Each structure stands twice: as structure tokens, then as C-alpha cells.
């Protein structure tokens, strides 16, 4: 897909030339961000879920973003300038997201966007392309993005670029890790129960595809709508079939209800949980029946995860969730891209996201290390908290999948499936 980016440049130039006039006067008064081209603060935008369906996940992501910004700025900031994140609520609604993105890009002069969910990105994909601003997001697992986004492996040429990058593993991939383990455990028949939200579905789809690919059979799959007071009927239906374990993909709150119902109903058989469910809250609420259940989680097993957690916990007490480390990674990789580019523009970031993350070059885990290495003229490879952050041509990351097993009211990591093994599960040009 080819996009003409001259329009955008002219627009910015026009703004500089004309200053404020007409609508621009109004907008100008209301615009507080500095223009990104010169010196001064570098503004990044974060479309956020401060209200809406997934708002309970945002505090962790916000905190990770904020501590990352703090750490980057403490290390001198990219190009010795301060980074600032402008966070605006999209309520996880594509309509709101559309105008929030416009506002962040055009009014706040955000050079990159550190957010957006699958349900926002997918229907706005064309629109996002027109923005010609990199979206480096910790959220989406959607299979839609498996073959969309990234720089197509040609960092210098942005004509073929699709401007979406995600620092979280796509569902297609990490579910493959889960599916592999499920098969390894000897489960040749499974039940699947999932919510009908996009995130929950996309995980289940990925898991089922990989599992069936590996030779397993799904005996029964039940979809449920979210927010119900009881999932007993759905469970009854699910367990009407024969299988040895069952996969659960539904947001945490509903999962707690669902698995409590499961525990109460004494249906037995072992749950396999989708990645966001490896939370101690779930284990303690459901109780002993959950012991032995495991989740194949990405995101908490990157090379710099431990140092991330340390910094994170100093920044506040927001709960850590599956998207928290990727948020940290998104911030770092973007800052490093600016540093490497030597200029702060959307195009420069887009062109440098690949080079600062991909294999080859000095491995760095913090911005400070990266800044120093770059100053020494070295190439760098950022090693993230969630994953090693090696962007594929489609802007996706592979990472190790951690198997967290519930026991005694909490989850503990039992096994890590290395990133390389995971990589082998997906053909090169399909992710």
C-alpha cells in the first residue's frame, strides 16, 4: 500500500507559516503541545481506556508508561529532550478513538501513539494509515494484525509501511505455546469456553487453531456474553461433552465468576487459562479447585522483566497485568527509535523502530544503556520486559511463553517456552 506523505508535511509547514487564523486560532489556543520538529519536549500520545469496557486494565498500563517516561527522562531523554505523554480517553470505542487519535496527532503533535485496542485498530486501520504516525501499542492480540503493520522489513522505505506496531505477542503465537503444552500434557480432546468480546475470542481462535493444527480435537466450544450473573448454564452445556481439559478465555471479572461457578458445580477437569487470567486475585477467589490450572502468558518473561517490575513498583500500586510490561516496552522502543534517528518526527520513529529492536547490535535493556551505545556509534537491540522485542516485518513480536500454574491461591511460573520454540510454530510470512 502506498501512501503519499507529502500532504502531511505540507500541513505542518502550513501551520508553521500561517500560525493561527480562523479555526486554527481556536485550535491553536487549545493546543498546548509543542510542535515535534524542533527542540523542547517530545510529545507522545496515549489513547487510553480510562472509561469503558477495559478500564480496569488501564491503571497498570498508565503506571508502566509513566515510570518508563520518568526513567527515560532521568537518563537524559531522547536527543536530550524530555518526553511527555498526553493521555486521552477513548472508552475503548472506535468512534471516540478516531477523534482522540486525530486530536493527539494534530493538536497535541504526538509523534507516536502508545495505545489502541484491537476493537479500535481494526475498524480504523485505513484511517490510522492516513495519520502516518506510528502506533506502538501494548494492547492488541488480534489475528487481524498478524499480517498487517510494521515496516515490511524495509526500515528506510516508509512507502510500504503500515504504521501499527505491537509490543505484545499476538494471540496466534502465544496461544500456540499454550496449545503445544496442552498437547504435551496428553490432552487430545478439549472444551473451550470464551467470551464474545474481541480479545477473548481472538485468544480462543488462536488457541483452537494451533491446537487442532497439532492434532487435538475440540469437543465443544461455547461462547458467552459478558457481564452475566451466572455462567452455570454455559458450563453445563460445555461439560455435556467429553474432554480432559478446557480452555477459558474471558476477561478477569467474568472469569472469576465463571470459574467459581465451575468450582461450585464440581465439574472437574483442568482449566487452561487465557493469558490475562494468570492473576492471583483469580486464584484466591476461586480457591483450591483451581490448583493445577495453568495459563500460557506472554509479557511477564522478557529479558528485562525483573528490573521493570522493580521500577514499576516504585511508581504506584496499580495492579500488574498482561499488558503492563508491553506498555513499558512500547515506551522504551519508541524513545530509542527517536534517539537513533537523531530527529523527532513520526517518520523517523517509524523508520527506526525496527533497527533498534531487531537482532544484531548491542543488547540493551534500558534507555540509558541504549543512549550510550548509540552515542558510541553502535547498533542496538532492545531487550524488553515482556518479550525480547524483535519486531517482525509486520510489527509483531515473539516472546517466550511463561506457563504459570495456580496453586495455593496464587500463580507461579513453572516453565518458560523459549521464544525460538514459539517462532517455529508460525510460518515466517504469516506473522
Amino acid at each position, binding site marked *: 500500500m502506498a501512501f503519499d506523505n507529502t500532504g502531511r508535511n505540507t500541513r505542518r509547514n502550513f501551520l508553521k507559516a500561517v500560525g493561527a487564523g480562523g479555526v486554527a486560532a481556536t485550535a491553536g489556543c487549545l493546543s498546548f503541545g509543542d510542535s515535534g520538529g524542533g527542540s523542547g519536549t517530545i510529545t507522545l500520545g496515549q489513547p487510553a481506556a480510562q472509561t469503558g469496557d477495559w478500564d480496569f486494565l488501564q491503571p497498570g498500563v498508565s503506571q508502566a508508561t509513566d515510570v518508563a517516561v520518568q526513567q527515560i527522562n532521568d537518563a537524559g531523554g531522547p536527543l536530550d529532550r524530555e518526553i511527555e505523554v498526553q493521555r486521552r480517553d477513548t472508552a475503548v470505542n472506535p468512534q471516540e478513538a478516531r477523534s482522540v487519535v486525530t486530536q493527539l496527532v494534530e493538536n497535541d503533535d504526538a509523534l507516536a501513539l502508545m495505545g489502541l485496542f484491537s476493537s479500535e485498530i481494526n475498524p480504523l486501520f485505513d484511517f490510522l494509515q492516513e495519520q502516518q504516525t506510528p502506533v506502538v501499542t501494548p494492547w492488541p492480540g488480534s489475528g487481524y494484525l498478524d499480517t498487517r503493520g510494521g515496516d515490511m522489513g524495509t526500515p528506510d522505505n516508509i512507502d510500504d509501511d503500515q504504521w501499527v506496531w505491537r509490543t505484545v505477542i499476538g494471540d496466534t503465537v502465544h496461544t500456540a505455546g499454550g496449545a503445544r503444552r496442552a498437547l504435551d500434557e496428553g490432552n487430545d480432546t478439549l472444551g473451550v469456553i470464551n467470551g464474545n468480546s474481541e480479545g477473548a475470542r481472538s485468544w480462543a481462535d488462536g488457541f483452537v487453531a494451533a491446537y487442532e493444527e497439532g492434532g487435538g480435537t475440540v469437543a465443544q466450544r461455547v461462547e458467552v456474553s459478558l*457481564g452475566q450473573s*451466572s455462567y452455570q*448454564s454455559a458450563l453445563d452445556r460445555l461439560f455435556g461433552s467429553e474432554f480432559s481439559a478446557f480452555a477459558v478465555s474471558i476477561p478477569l471479572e467474568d472469569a472469576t465468576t465463571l470459574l467459581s461457578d465451575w468450582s461450585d*458445580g464440581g465439574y472437574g477437569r483442568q482449566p487452561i487459562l487465557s493469558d490475562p487470567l494468570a492473576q492471583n486475585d483469580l486464584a484466591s477467589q476461586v480457591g483450591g479447585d483451581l490448583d493445577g490450572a495453568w495459563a500460557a502468558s506472554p509479557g511477564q518473561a522478557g529479558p528485562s522483566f525483573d528490573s521493570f517490575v522493580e521500577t514499576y513498583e516504585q511508581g504506584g500500586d496499580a495492579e500488574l497485568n498482561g499488558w503492563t510490561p508491553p506498555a513499558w516496552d512500547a515506551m522504551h522502543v519508541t524513545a530509542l527509535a527517536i534517539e537513533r534517528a537523531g530527529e523527532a518526527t513520526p517518520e523517523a520513529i517509524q523508520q527506526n523502530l525496527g533497527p533498534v529492536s531487531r537482532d544484531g547490535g548491542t543488547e540493551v535493556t534500558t534507555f540509558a544503556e541504549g543512549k550510550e551505545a548509540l552515542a558510541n556509534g553502535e547498533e542496538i537491540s532492545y531487550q524488553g520486559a515482556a518479550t525480547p522485542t524483535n519486531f517482525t516485518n509486520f510489527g509483531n513480536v515473539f516472546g517466550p511463553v511463561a506457563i504459570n500454574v495456580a496453586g495455593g491461591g496464587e500463580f507461579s511460573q513453572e516453565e518458560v517456552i523459549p521464544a525460538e520454540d514459539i517462532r517455529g510454530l508460525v510460518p515466517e510470512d504469516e506473522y
Partner: protein
Amino acid sequence: MGLAQNVIFGLVTGSYIAIAAIGFTLIYGIVNMINFAYGEYLTMGAFIGILTVGVLPLPLPLAAVVAMVGGGLISLLLARLFFTPINQTGPVPMLLTSIGLGLVLRNGIRLTAGQSARYFDTEAITFRFDGLPPLSVGSVDLLGGFFVTSEQLIVMGCAVGVFLLVHTLLTRTDVGIAMRAMGDNENLARVRGIDTQRIRDSVWVLAGVLAALAGVLLGIQTNVSAGTGFSQILQILSAAILGGAGSPYGAIAGSYVIGLVLALSTAFLPAGMTGISSAIAFLILIGVLLVKPSGLAGQEVREA
């Protein structure tokens, strides 16, 4: 798939809805408004329960009572602030005001209580009845073994208790009889010396108490967050309208219809359609309105 088991699930779901729907329908019948903010009354009740358990701390049953008292008072306060002043303007402005109020409350709760869900710490005991013989018709087992948990029994028990108390209130006490009288003929009620504003206030309190109870029960079974009640409002509303708006007995019947439809459609719809059970409930609502606009219970029902 056992029918008996799913009927029990349906009855449990119906019980939550019924407790709330009675309050909703009384407001409809006596104050003459559809209160769209009513879901938030459940949420507030649940949060008061959580706070009481967590901060004071009181045992759960006492916390539920505290929540009910608090819910009643808040309901009265909100009515005085938002609804009583526009009592005379008719149903549409009242409905729209409640939509606005719901927005305010939901986000106010989110603002003060945060975004993550809270949980009540409870343990459930499961009672099994496995000895029953299957009675199969096709793939459906009409009987079969079933289980019921202590939480489910508490929910159903609370519902039955509420029905009895509300029935007693409405048939044995002056206030309750006056409530029904106002639903019949407000002018005549005034002629009888009934202070209609006081009765309306009582209805608000009662509705708040019931909403809080439903909220706490819902919170025990699921969790408590700013959206807890909002996710239930359409079901509560459907149940009340289905039963014949204004009739508490109809609301009870409507609630169990909705509960059973949700459970049975989830259990027996073709694969791939299990997610649309809520839509089925709405379809039934529309169907009933078309066939019998006055709802299941018709206009006047005395006995359940």
C-alpha cells in the same frame, strides 16, 4: 444436558432479577417513571456492602443489612434531588433524567471507587442430587442429577423472603396498601387522606433497599465494579415490562421467565448461538408486548 439443572440455574438468575425488578416496577407503577439509573442503585448497594465488610468489618449478613439501609436512604435522597421536583412533567422527561443521573452515578462511582473489581470473600457449599434417574427426550434430559450451592440457595431464599415480605407489606400494612391504592387512583388516594408524597418516598426507599440487596447478592456471586448494576438494567427492565409494568407479582413472574430463557437458551440453542441468549430475552419481551401489551400479569394482579 439436564433440564432440571438448567431450570435451577434459571431460577437463581431469575431470583436476582426479581428482587431488583420488584423495586423497579413499583417505581414504574407509583411514581410513573422508567428509572434507567436503577442499575446504579444495585452498584451502590454492592459497594456499601463491600465497604462495610472491609472497613468496619461486619459479617456479611449484617453488611447486607447496612447496604439495604444505605441503599434506601440514597434512593430517597436521589429521588428528592432529581425526580420529585419534576414529578409532574410526565414519563419521558423523567426517563431522560434517569439516563442522565445514571451517567452521573456510574462515573461518580468509578471516580471514587476506582476501576478494578472488588470481591466478597465467601465460601460455597455444593449439595448434589445425583440419584435421580435420567428421563431423556432426544438429547434433552428432562430430569437427571443436579446440584445446588449454598450461595444459590441463599439467593433463592432471599428472593422468597423478599416476595413474602413485599407481599405482606403490600397487603397487610397501611403504607403498602396505600402504595397499591396510589397505583390505582392517585386522586382518590388523596381523598382518603393519603399523603401521596410520603408514599412515593416510601416506594423510593423500598426500591433502594431491594436494589441494594440485589446488588450485594450479585456482588457475592460475581464481583463489584462500577458497571455491576448497569449490566443488569436491561434484564431488570425487561422483566418488569414483561410482567406488566407496575405489578410486583408480574415482575416476579417476568424475572423468572427471563432467568429461565437465559439459562435454557444458553443450554439448548444450536452451537455458535449461545452468546445471543440476552437477545432471545428481548425477543420474548417484544413478542409479549405485541400479543398482550399489558404484560404477563395484565393490569391488576392480586395474588402471585
